[in-house]
C-alpha cells in the first residue's frame, strides 16, 4: 500500500457538512448559531461551557440547515450543526507568516490559545488538549507523544510526520512548554525508520536535546498505551492494562493541530485522514474537515473501483463499520477504509478447538478462549475472575482464531 504523496490534498467542498459539537452538548458546548443563519469559514459554531468544553469552528461558508442529533463515523453520539455549504465560495484557511513569539509566551497563555482554537486531544476519547496539558498525569516530568501508527492500513500520522517534521518537533516543544515539563519523548514505531531519521536530524539541527525520539517494536497494537508505556518505562509495568489503555497520550494529529493553533492561529476544524482499502481508486492521505460525510470524503480519492465488502472508520482491527454514508467524520477519525468482500471477516462460527493461538497473541496475556466460554455460559463472575476487564479490545485473538469465534464481542460482554 502506498503512503500516497507527502502533500496532503483537500477534497472539493461537499454540499452538506454535519459538524459535530463534541461532548454531551448542551453540557459542554453551547451552540451559537440558529437554523437559517448564514455562517462563514472560521466562525465559532459553539462556545465552550466549563472545563470540558471547547469552541467548535465552522469549516466552510454556508447556511445552517439545523441542529441535528447524529452518530459520527467513529461511533460518537453527538449533536451536529448541519451546514448547507456555499460550494462556489466555501472559503479556506490562509496561513499568514509563521509567528515565532510562542517561545516567549507563558504556559498559561499557550494553553489558553490552544483551548481558544478548539484543539482536542485526539485518540480513543476526545478531550480538550488544554485541560490535559494543565492537569494531565505525567511520569518523570516527560511529555510522551504517541507517534506509533494505530493499525495496519493507517498511515495518516506517519505521512504527517514525513511531510512536516519540523512543524511536528515545534508542536511537541509547544506542548512541552504548555504542560510545564522538562522533557519530551516521541515514541515512533520501528517500521517508520524514515520518520525516526528525519525527526532525529531536525532535533539535532534545532539543538533541542530535551526532545528524544525512540523507536519501539512495530507490533500491533503498539499504539495502545497499555502496550507502549511499559516499553517506555518499566514504571508502567505494574499498572493494570485497562488503566493504561485509557491513559491519554497526544498523537501526531494533536501535535500538528496545536502547532497550527499557536503559530498560525488556525482553529481546529480538520485533520489528516487515511483513505484507503483495495476498493479505493486513489488511496491517499487527505485533510478532511470535521462533518464531511464518507461519500464526499471518498470523492477526494476518485471514489471506489467496486462495491466494498465493508466500509470502515478506523483500521481493520478496531475500526467501526460505517452504517450510512452521510455520517460525519470527527476528530477521532484517522482512517476511512473500503475493504473488498474477499478480505472481509465473515461470522462462520465453529467450535473452539483449543489451539491456544488466541492466548499466544494476546498482548496482555489473557486466555481469550476461557473468557469467551465463560461469557457464553453467562458466567460473568467467572469472566471477571479471568480478568476479562483487562482486555484492550485489540482484536488479535479474534483475528487468529481458526474457528472464527467473535472473541472480542464475547470478552467485552464479560465485563
Amino acid at each position: 500500500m502506498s503512503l500516497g504523496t507527502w502533500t496532503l490534498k483537500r477534497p472539493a467542498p461537499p454540499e452538506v457538512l454535519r459538524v459535530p459539537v463534541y461532548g454531551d452538548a448542551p453540557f459542554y458546548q453551547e451552540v451559537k448559531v440558529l437554523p437559517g443563519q448564514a455562517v462563514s469559514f472560521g466562525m465559532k459554531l459553539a462556545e465552550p461551557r466549563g472545563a470540558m468544553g471547547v469552541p467548535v469552528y465552522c469549516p466552510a461558508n454556508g447556511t445552517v440547515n439545523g441542529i441535528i442529533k447524529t452518530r459520527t463515523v467513529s461511533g460518537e453520539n453527538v449533536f451536529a450543526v448541519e451546514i448547507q455549504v456555499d460550494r462556489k465560495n466555501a472559503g479556506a484557511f490562509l496561513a499568514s507568516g509563521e509567528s515565532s513569539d510562542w517561545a516567549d509566551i507563558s504556559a498559561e497563555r499557550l494553553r489558553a490559545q490552544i483551548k481558544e482554537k478548539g484543539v482536542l486531544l485526539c485518540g480513543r476519547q476526545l478531550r480538550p488538549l488544554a485541560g490535559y496539558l494543565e492537569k494531565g498525569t505525567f511520569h518523570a516530568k516527560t511529555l510522551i507523544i504517541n507517534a506509533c501508527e494505530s493499525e495496519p492500513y493507517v498511515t495518516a500520522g506517519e505521512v504527517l510526520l514525513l511531510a512536516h517534521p519540523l512543524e511536528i518537533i515545534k508542536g511537541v516543544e509547544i506542548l512541552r512548554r504548555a504542560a510545564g515539563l522538562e522533557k519530551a519523548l516521541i515514541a515512533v514505531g520501528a517500521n517508520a525508520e524514515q520518520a525516526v531519521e528525519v525527526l532525529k536530524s531536525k532535533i539535532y539541527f534545532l539543538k533541542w536535546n530535551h526532545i528524544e525520539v525512540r523507536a519501539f517494536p512495530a507490533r500491533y497494537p503498539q499504539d495502545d498505551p497499555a502496550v507502549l508505556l511499559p516499553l517506555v518505562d518499566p514504571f508502567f509495568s505494574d499498572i493494570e492494562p485497562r488503566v493504561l489503555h485509557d491513559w491519554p497520550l497526544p498523537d501526531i494529529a494533536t501535535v500538528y493541530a496545536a502547532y497550527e493553533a499557536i503559530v498560525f492561529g488556525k482553529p481546529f476544524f480538520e485533520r489528516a485522514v487515511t483513505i484507503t482499502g483495495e476498493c479505493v481508486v486513489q488511496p491517499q492521505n487527505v485533510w478532511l474537515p470535521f462533518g464531511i460525510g464518507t461519500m464526499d470524503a471518498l470523492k477526494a480519492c476518485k471514489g471506489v473501483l467496486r462495491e466494498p465488502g465493508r466500509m470502515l472508520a478506523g483500521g481493520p482491527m478496531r475500526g467501526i463499520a460505517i452504517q450510512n454514508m452521510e455520517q460525519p467524520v470527527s476528530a477521532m477519525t484517522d482512517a476511512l477504509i473500503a475493504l473488498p468482500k474477499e478480505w472481509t471477516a465473515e461470522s462462520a462460527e465453529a467450535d473452539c478447538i483449543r489451539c491456544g493461538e488466541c492466548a499466544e497473541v494476546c498482548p496482555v496475556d489473557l486466555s481469550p478462549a476461557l473468557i469467551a466460554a465463560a461469557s457464553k455460559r453467562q458466567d460473568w463472575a467467572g469472566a471477571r475472575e479471568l480478568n476479562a476487564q483487562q482486555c484492550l479490545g485489540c482484536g488479535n485473538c479474534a483475528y487468529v482464531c481458526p474457528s472464527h469465534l467473535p472473541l472480542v464481542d464475547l470478552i467485552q460482554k464479560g465485563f
Partner: protein
Amino acid sequence: MQPTIAFNQGAAPHLKNEISFVSMLARQLGALLILLLASFWMQGLAGLLLFAVVLVTAFAGEIILRFLGFSAVPKWDLALIHQTVLLALFVPALTSPALIAASTFAMTFFYRASGGRGAYVLQPVCLALAFLSVLGVTPAYALQGMTMIPSAILFALWAALRFPRTRVEAERFICVLILAVLLTLLHGMPMGPAFLWAAAAGEILFDYALAPLSSAARMGYRVFVLILFALFLAAARAEEALLFTGLTAGFIGAWIEKRNLNGRVYGKA
C-alpha cells in the same frame, strides 16, 4: 463509482484471517499421522494400540472434566480430535499402557482445564526433550561433554532475555528450573544442565529466530519438532525422565494457568 453501502454490518476485527478451522485441523492431523506412522514402524501393532489408549483416555478425561464442570465447551465437537492430536505430543516413551493412560489422563485434565495455555508451558519442555534426543540417543550419557559452563551461559542468556518481560515468562522460567533440578536429582549431574541447555536453545530458537516467520513456517517448525519426538520415541530409552517431565510440566502448567495466566496479575501475588 460511489458505493451504495447497503452492506455494512459486522464487528471488529473486520479483516478476514487466513487460518481456517479445517486447515488448522488438517495440519495437526497430518502431524499426528507422522507420529502414528513412526510408532507403527517402530512398535508395530503395539504402537497403534498405544494410540488407541491415548484416544480412550482423552475421552475419559473429557467426560470427567465435564462432570466436574471444568470443560469450557458446552457440546461434543471437533475440539476433542484436536485435543487428541495435541496429546499425542505428550505420549511418553513407549513403556506400559498403564503409564501412558495415566499420563494422558493427567494431560487431558490439565490441558483442558487450562484452556490451552498449558501447552505454552509444555512447549519448552517438549523442545528440550526433542533437542536432547537429537543430540544423543540417551541424553544422560551423550551430553556428558556439555559441562556446566555453556549450559550456564546459555541459560543466563535466556533468563536475561526473557525474565523481565512478564510474570508469565518468569514463572515459566522457574518451572523449567525446577524441572532441571528434579532431573538432576533423578538422573545425576549431566541431566539437569543438559536439560537447561536444550530448553534455552529451544526457547531462543523459537522466540527469537522463528517468531517473526509466517504462521505456516512456524507450523512447519512444530511438525519438525514432532518428527524429532517420533525419533525420540524410537530411542525409547529415557522413559522415566520423559514421563516424569511430561507429568510435572503438565501439572505446573495447569497450576500456573489457574493462578496467574489469566492476564497479568498486578499487585496481587
